[in-house]
Each structure stands twice: as C-alpha cells, then as structure tokens.
C-alpha cells in the first residue's frame, strides 16, 4: 500500500501505522482519524459522498508531506483519504506521523489535516434529512503562504 492514497476502499488505521513504523529510532506515533458525523450545522446527516480530482489530490498530498518534512525533519508520514459513499461513523481520512519524539509527531499530524482542508482538491457532498448540499470550505491556493503559516500555527510548534 502506498503511504499516500485516495481510495474508495475502507481505511484501516493499522495500515497507516504500519506504513510509518519499522525503524528502531521512532519513539512516537500520532494519528488522526476523521469520521463522518451524524449531524452538521443543525442538519441530520444520512451519509456523505466524497469526490476528488484524484491525480491532483495525490500530488498535493505529496506536497503537504514535503512541507511537513521541511518543518519537522525526519518525521515519517502517511495519509489516506477515502472517496465515494461513506456512512455515519466511517473514516474519511487517516493520517499517521511517526517521529523520534512526540512533539514532532503531534505537530506533523495536525499540520497535515489542516493543510488537507486548505488545499487538497476533494469535496464533501452532504446528504441530510430533507436535502443535500456540497460543502465548500477554503479556496485552494497551494502558493498562499499565509494559509500555510496558519496551519503551522495550529500545530503549536
């Protein structure tokens, strides 16, 4: 399994952890799992559909991993994002970050999810009781340094 993937298969945390493990120098693994919630802004969500511009999404995830590698050298990262129809409680994204020390693992993991929400070309189609809506978050601009620095700030690094 690739350490970066956009896939319609169910995501498995053990897979992501396995992808960053395997060196005796690692002392910490931080992971993040994003789950489909049953409500959003007062709407009762029935399910989601995620759509991706897949070749670009994979490239941008690679870019984000590169940014994290510059910020926290030596951190090992894996990211899988799911697409297609997801039920309540399904994992939409899993991130694993392994490092010698915990501060870098936590920071890199948090950084990746913040950046994913900023610039990865993936969209969430929410189906709720009584309708559906495309969720629209950030205008994707991978060159926007203010956004990147905001993601760094949120890691508390």
């Amino acid at each position: 399994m690739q350490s970066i993937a956009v896939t319609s298969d169910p995501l498995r945390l053990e897979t992501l952890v396995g992808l960053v493990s395997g060196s005796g120098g690692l002392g910490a693994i931080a992971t993040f799992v994003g789950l489909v919630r049953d409500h959003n802004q007062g709407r009762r969500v029935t399910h989601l559909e995620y759509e991706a511009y897949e070749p670009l999404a994979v490239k941008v995830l690679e870019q984000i991993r590169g940014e994290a590698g510059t910020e926290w050298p030596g951190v090992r990262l894996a990211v899988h994002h799911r697409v297609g129809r997801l039920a309540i409680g399904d994992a939409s994204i899993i991130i694993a970050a392994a490092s010698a020390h915990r501060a870098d693992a936590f920071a890199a993991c948090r950084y990746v999810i913040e950046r994913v929400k900023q610039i990865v070309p993936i969209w969430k189609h929410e189906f709720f009781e009584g309708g559906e809506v495309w969720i629209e978050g950030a205008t994707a601009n991978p060159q926007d340094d203010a956004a990147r620095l905001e993601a760094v700030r949120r890691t508390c690094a």
Partner: protein
Amino acid sequence: MRITVRLFARLRDIAGLAELTRELPDGSTAADAWRELVEQFPAMAAYNASISTAVNADYAKMTTMLSDNDEVAFLPPVSGG
C-alpha cells in the same frame, strides 16, 4: 485549439457534466475558458471569486496560457478531510 474542461462538485452539478470539450482561439487563458463556461452556465458566476484552476492536473493561475489538448479543471472551494 481544443481543450478538455473538467468540472467538480457543485460545478459539475450545475453543468450536468463532469467533462466537456471546447474550441478556443490560440492564446486563450484558463480565465478565458472560465468566462466562456460562465456564459453557458450563468449560475457558475457565483464562483468567480472563489474558483481555483488546474491545468493538466497541476494547480495553475487563471492567467495561464492554454495549449492544444490541455485539460483545464475548475475547482470550487475544497472540503476534504
């Protein structure tokens, strides 16, 4: 020249199509392709200020000049994660 336009999320819903082809004059930019799209689908004008674009699966500026057979994608604000 002939280009392929890829549409995602609500833009795809508005057009009722994920992909379409366009004949554009030589020297056209991604912005020109977008303007023509908005003429055909006026509801897309709501995205004039928030759209991103990619040319051949790399993020690009709206001022990027297009070439024959390019794939131009228009991307509404993203919501992954």
